[in-house]
């Protein structure tokens, strides 16, 4: 059985704000075909499992309801991969500064 997270755990929930048919009129077709979805983080109000519809209290004390989608909403963004093309870019402007280019005026 899936794990139960205790009351007070800081989690992320997701809810559907507008289903595809209820969205604004002037949208591109690709966007219109999707729901407007919201995610927000807060503290569990009672012990809950992933996938359950639950309530959380945010850091400023507001209550939101949604499906528990992420029991550990850590920040996962990073500095990316090594971009080899940037080494060539670096070489090009350093060389230009030292030697000047063809279009040196």
């Amino acid at each position: 059985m899936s794990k139960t997270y205790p009351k007070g755990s800081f989690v992320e929930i997701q809810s559907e704000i507008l289903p595809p048919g209820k969205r604004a009129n002037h949208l591109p077709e690709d966007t219109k075909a999707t729901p407007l979805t919201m995610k927000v983080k807060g503290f569990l109000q009672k012990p809950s499992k992933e996938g359950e519809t639950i309530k959380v209290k945010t850091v400023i004390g507001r209550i939101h309801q949604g499906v528990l989608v992420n029991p550990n909403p850590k920040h996962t963004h990073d500095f990316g991969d090594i971009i080899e093309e940037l080494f060539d870019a670096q070489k090009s402007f350093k060389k230009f500064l030292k030697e000047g280019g063809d279009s040196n005026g």
Partner: protein
Amino acid sequence: MDNSYNAVMSRRNQIMKQAIGLDYSQFSLSDLAFDYEKMMNHGEYSIDRIVEIQKNQGVGNTPLYELKNFTEIARKLAPAGKGARIFVKDEAANPSGSFKDRRAAVSVYNAKKNGYKGVIAATSGNYGAAVASQAAMQMLDCIIIQEAFDSKGIYQPEIMEKGRACETYGAEVIQLSVGPELFYVFLKTLEETGYFNASLYSPFGIAGIETLGLEIAEQCKEIAGRKPSKVIVTHAGGGNLTGTARGLQKAGCSDTEVIGASIDLTGLHMASDNDFNKKSFTTGHTGFSVPFTTWPDRADVPKNAARPLRYLDRFVTVSQGEAFYVTEMLAKLEGMERGPAGNTSLAAAIKIAQEMEQDEVLVVQETEYTGAGKHINAQLSFAKENGIEIQHGDPAENVPGENIIFPKDPSLINVKEHSIDKLRNTYLKNIKKNFDINDLRDVDWKFLEQELNCTKSHIKTLLGKES
């Protein structure tokens, strides 16, 4: 209460009035015209007072650095004797890492003074962190609403970082999938909470940027012994350009040319779920600058205080590849790790400096902090994951959403010029859609002359072309 999309949108005016605490009807001159200067000078917010508020809240007084290696590169490319000195205003030195602290400082101060318990801003950009940071300082609650991920749940990494920063400063962060109905969630949240709308486009917010123009004028005089000949502003919603230009004018720099620079994202639809994660710049691009320049009142306040056509002397675009390339140059040649979004005007500076005399001063008006997600490697990795090709060559050949082209060498850094008259034309087209222009009174003509920064006869010529 009916919280359906249409019901909330129909309550828009009353929600806004409560949330901004400013009755805009007092500035109205006719259906079309309003007294812009009266709106900007409303209340206590003189530029001296704003300097004081910002000083109290740790904002402003950022350094102005000379970029000597950038200048040298521009001079190598320029005709003999040409190549202005390039300076950059290091706005990353503000508390939350961007010039947006200037707007947030005044907005949050205003909210606190008027007894609001909290502030709300709808923004995926640096402004969220700025409002959250200022709210933290003033002990107000803060909610930031972001357009953050596509329908597959994939986040733009830069927006992820901004969300993290907002949380760090103690804000509740509401993240949404792609779509303009963010505005609906924004209105609903304002109504539920009774918090202040820390709009990017209030007179408080825009007046907050005037100190940036003022500082540039003062620092140029002190460091270079002269006024800046040209100031390049990364141009998105228009506030940065409007506020900076007003500040320059107040500091006696009416002759300084104010240039707006945006990333050209032509071809990518800003409300498209598919296109959302194909762009590597989340702001400072034509998806904001063109619509906001040509119709400022699309904003989240009744009358937008950011009105760029009043101040825009010249408008240029650069490509994503050029902005990334100069971001790398700034780190490797000047020892400053910043941006990338703030470096849009820096890319334009390399080219524009070449037109200018060597003793002239060209100011790039902002930097922004960088970090995970915002970092050049993070954005380029994300671009590759989304099928965007990274190439070396001539950036003029780039296709937004398909490739990013680094200039083969600095000689290929260029700007694309955009006609101000074309922007004026689109503005007038929008006026025609919303007002009866066959019945314009003197007050309307005067307003349009100020709005478009040109004469009535020129406007008539433009209208002639249009009809």
